[in-house]
């Protein structure tokens, strides 16, 4: 077994984690207390309903692909979005396919999609065969998805999750069959491919904003505000660190604290010296 990271390795990083957690929780509490919070428009998410409408008109299926996402926070987020899409689909009885490469995601997706049909009041439309585990091998999965997109001539293709080299195979195949495509990923190396081949692309932390945007739940909106505060703090740290590094030099204890693992101890020694002198 390899060694694991601990807070003791870099107390400053641990402090940042606690700060982000506090920012998120305090804003969730504020949102729950009734504070009105604003979230900016994300065109890709507004287009979800439009894409579903097109599928319904054409009578062709909607596909949802969580990529090679293992079961974790990305998978939960992707399935949350797919659950919302399924609820919309259930209103119009549009056929859907959810294709996964991870067996754990497959098991959870079955429950989530079944719940979505129940919540939409159409449990009769739920077909367990519409959620498919194709293969855990990257390119076997890619060929399975590409084949299904071609054979079923899908009208809308939603790709949310973690993607690798197979992303372009999905996006280009969807483009060839004329599907409206909306992709959202945290894998920034795949973003250019999605931008080139999809109608809308949701990048970076917008992916995590999706559930808040769709549901408008106070808890999620509060969390978003907390995330933004944390980003602001990070931005300030980057700018402040650059200025201080220029003035103090890269080996100063303050710079070591900000930018180097194990920078806590030299900083504390320096601080005690400064305070001792004072």
């Amino acid at each position, binding site marked *: *077994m390899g060694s694991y990271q601990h807070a003791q390795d870099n107390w400053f990083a641990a402090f940042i984690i606690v700060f982000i957690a506090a920012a998120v929780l305090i804003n969730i509490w504020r949102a729950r207390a009734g504070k009105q919070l604003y979230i900016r428009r994300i065109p890709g998410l507004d287009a979800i309903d439009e894409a579903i409408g097109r599928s319904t008109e054409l009578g062709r299926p909607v596909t949802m692909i969580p990529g090679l996402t293992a079961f974790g926070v990305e998978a939960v*987020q992707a399935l949350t979005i797919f659950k919302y899409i399924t609820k919309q689909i259930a209103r119009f009885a549009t056929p859907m396919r959810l294709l996964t490469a991870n067996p*754990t995601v497959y098991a959870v997706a079955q429950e989530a999609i079944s719940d979505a049909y129940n919540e939409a009041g159409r449990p009769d439309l739920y077909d367990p065969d519409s959620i498919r585990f194709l293969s855990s*091998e990257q390119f076997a999965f890619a060929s399975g998805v590409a084949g299904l997109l071609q054979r079923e001539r899908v009208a809308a293709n939603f790709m949310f999750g973690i993607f690798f080299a197979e992303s372009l195979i999905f996006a280009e195949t969807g483009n060839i069959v004329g599907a409206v495509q909306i992709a959202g990923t945290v894998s920034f190396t795949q973003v250019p491919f999605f931008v080139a*081949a999809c109608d809308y692309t949701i990048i970076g932390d917008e992916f995590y*904003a999706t559930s808040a945007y769709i549901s408008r739940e106070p808890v999620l909106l509060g969390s978003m505000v907390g*995330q933004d505060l944390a980003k602001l703090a990070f931005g300030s740290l980057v700018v402040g660190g650059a200025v201080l590094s220029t003035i103090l030099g890269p080996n100063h204890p303050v710079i070591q604290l900000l930018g180097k693992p194990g920078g806590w101890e030299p900083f504390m020694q320096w601080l005690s010296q400064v305070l001792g002198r004072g």
Partner: protein
Amino acid sequence: MFDTRENIWAAFWMIGAAILIFALIPLLQTLPPRGRYLLIAFVTFIAGLFFAAEFFLPVDEKTGKNFLTDPFQRLQGSLQVITALSLGLGTYGLIRLHLRNAVQRRAQWGYSIVLLVSFVTMAFFSVWNTLAEKGLLGVQRTPLLERAFTLLFDYTLVQLDATMFSLIAFYIFSAAYRAFRIRSVEASILMFTAMIVMIGIVPLGKFISDSIGLPIMMTDEMRTNPFALETILYSLRLPEVANWILNVLNAPVQRAIEFGVGIGALAMAIRLWLSLERGIT
């Protein structure tokens, strides 16, 4: 199978955990929705607390461990067991779907037959090979196994994988064509920048820079005088410009996205830990 005391204990732990899980299922079904939610939230919180405590508690300087590190490692191993179990579930779902397709002669049922035959053949030779490799159940390697395994895995599966990967090259062409069509100011900037990077990182960039007489090397004198004409001309070499675009313009944007993603993931993890995320739970 288990030849050490530790493995036997690990097996007992896993069996115990399985019994506990199966005992919890009827309990969950008898509880009212509110009670069910509270029980799940409690278990989730305790599990999350375990991981958080392992990270935040001080560790021994010599071993780099605290008292939760060893159980933490075992727990990670048990997560693999869960994944392996769910792989069986996924495979079952796949076989069930294609068996139905074949039996009920649904549309394109021929593909299902191909899948089922391929699945059984690959699984048969894979299991046979594993047993022979590990010398289990007295299974030996035979010429038939050698030939079939090579044919199926090395000459078929690996080649099919490579074929799918190679397809990406053609898809990149068509995607790049659409991305680089000059339709707006932004698309024009994208096209221009991409051209510089593409030419700059291949030998053509060096050839063009050399041909128009730009300095070939950065000398010590140029390093000490960044505003000299020679230094400025050197920095206009296409490989240098391409590197500058990648390292100075592109890298900070990628890092900024990574910051956002990291914060988003942490916020999501906190919501899941405290059962505040109600999307699929």
